[in-house]
């Protein structure tokens, strides 16, 4: 280490930026870093993998069915129709991750809007909205999911909407509690005294102050949405074959669990990696964004 770099390291910045401290705290969180790398790996593999892989995920090759992984030209083997497992995992990753992200965006948007309106206005409006949230929350989400999925034709879009419809309530409650606490703070009263319209107070003054828990909820919601998509696809109500998703690949693998276990292990591992990755990321963000930890 050169003397120059040692001295800059020893001198703390006069006004350390909050973002900088947050990033450092996040980097110290080892599991969060691992989670981020895992997610990055899955996203990159799903996005660019199909261009690097010579095999098509829909190409049926009955002659080479049930090839074990690492035993031939197919890196991760083939399934019961001789389709390349790697290609299918990558394509399925696109579907599963897309559904996860899109459902997260939808559920966060819906939950935030309902939560902020309920928390800001309070009174009858707030009570009505929150009781509605409580009512929806009473349904077991898997049951709700399957009931909805049974009636609606499963496409990428409808499945995303159905998953979001079972995930927005917790966000709404979280945001409502935050906003209710924030709206009595001096700066919110000051904004009212300045004649700020309600939407300005809600979305420009209050929401940025509640962003940290929303971001954490968002990452955890991605994990949850991926898991839910796997559930319903596994049960056959989700993404329909031949389009692969991690969930319906597992569904396919049921019959060959003993003869070709890699058909189950590979998509299962992908789901596990994605879900734990996002959960670790969420935990790391929760710590990094918590201002009370700034003192350390």
């Amino acid at each position, binding site marked *: 280490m050169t003397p120059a770099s040692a001295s800059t390291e020893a001198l703390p910045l006069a*006004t350390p930026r909050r973002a900088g401290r947050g990033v450092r705290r996040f980097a110290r969180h080892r599991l969060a870093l691992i989670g981020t790398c895992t997610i990055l790996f899955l996203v990159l593999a799903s996005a660019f993998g199909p261009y690097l892989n010579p095999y098509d995920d829909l190409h049926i090759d009955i002659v080479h069915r049930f090839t074990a992984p690492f035993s031939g030209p197919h890196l991760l083997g083939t399934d019961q129709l001789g389709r390349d497992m790697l290609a299918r995992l990558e394509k399925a990753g696109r579907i599963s991750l897309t559904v996860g992200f899109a459902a997260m965006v939808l559920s966060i948007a819906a939950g935030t809007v309902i939560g902020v309106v309920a928390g800001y206005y309070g*009174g009858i409006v707030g009570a009505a909205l929150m009781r509605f949230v409580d009512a929806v929350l009473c349904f077991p989400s898997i049951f709700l999911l399957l009931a909805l999925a049974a009636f609606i034709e499963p496409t990428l879009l409808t499945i995303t909407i159905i998953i979001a419809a079972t995930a927005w309530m917790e966000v709404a409650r979280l945001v409502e509690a935050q906003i209710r606490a924030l709206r009595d*703070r*001096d*700066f919110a*009263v*000051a*904004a*009212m*005294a*300045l*004649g*700020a*319209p309600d939407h*300005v107070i809600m979305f*420009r*003054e209050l929401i*940025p*102050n509640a*962003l940290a828990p929303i971001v954490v909820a968002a990452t955890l919601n991605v994990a949850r949405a991926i898991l839910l998509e796997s559930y319903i696809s596994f049960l056959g109500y989700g993404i329909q074959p031949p389009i692969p998703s991690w969930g319906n690949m597992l569904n396919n693998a049921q019959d060959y669990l003993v003869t070709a276990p890699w058909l189950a292990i590979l998509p299962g591992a992908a789901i596990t990696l994605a879900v734990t990755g996002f959960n670790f990321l969420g935990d790391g963000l929760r710590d990094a964004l918590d201002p009370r930890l700034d003192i350390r």
Partner: protein
Amino acid sequence: MTAAPVLDVSDLRVRFNTDSGVVPAVNGVSFTLARGETLSLVGESGSGKSVTSLAIMRLTPTAPICEVGGSAILRDADGPPRNLLTLPEAEMREIRGSRVAMIFQEPATSLNPVLTLGEQIAEPIRYHRGTPRATALREAERLLDLVGIPDARRRLSSYPHQLSGGMRQRAMIAIALACEPAVLIADEPTTALDVTVQAQILELLRELQARTGMALLFITHNLGVVAEMADRVIVMYAGRVVEQAPLQTLFRRPLMPYTDGLLRSVPRLSSLHEPLEAIPGNVPDPAHLPSGCSFAPRCEHAEAGRCDTAVPELQSATPDHLVRCVRWHELTRTADGLLATQ
């Protein structure tokens, strides 16, 4: 002063309906505020001065919890007289921050911690005038300069936690002045600041008032600050005006025993070795006000049968000196304060 009042508050009443009964916080407060004038509302904690200002801004809690009566007429240069207390909410919102602005006691918590100063100053300009963001930010820079924040352009992108207390209050003033209000309500704007910074902020407010001609309603419990700032003073006690007079008159010849007690409880250099005088007793619980003069239980001149039967009227000692005391003409001022002569 011949100027027509910009703000005419009459018989303002604020009641809070709490679980433990009705609490009258403000009981028939009336005053006028002329263009360019500074009127000081003085009183102890709980005397109703802050509630008065919040009621004028219509920022008190909503109907079942809090009821507001009376009127507060705003006579703006550009428009007909409007009663702030009965105006539809949408019109009231246009007035807040643009015609009547307010600055608060605690600059540290009155600024949004996650928005830059530039955004916070530009915001009211944007929604009151529809100015585009870039123009509003240039205006914000000019305002920061106006309130004496050095290096205004760089400060636009600062967050509140990067500023000192005095700087934050300057920024609050910049936000309040963004739309050139006719009336500025300052609710103890210097209480949270160091004495030296306090003097700078008062100086700044006076200077800005001279420049813009706005009327200033200055709420404080600090008589030293009143002496610095006010043209006229209203002394409030238990939700009522108990004395109202021009600054000099009030300080030289207070008529109400309460005002006299307040003035005598200010520490002085000349009486350095004497114990500090204090008014005995406490402010009455607003939910259980005494039946007569609310100050009577603490007043050394209170007379049984006169002071504790009915609330005294606000009487005119001189045309511009009002006092709420049945015995005011029986008391004369001596070196030791008010003394009963009869």
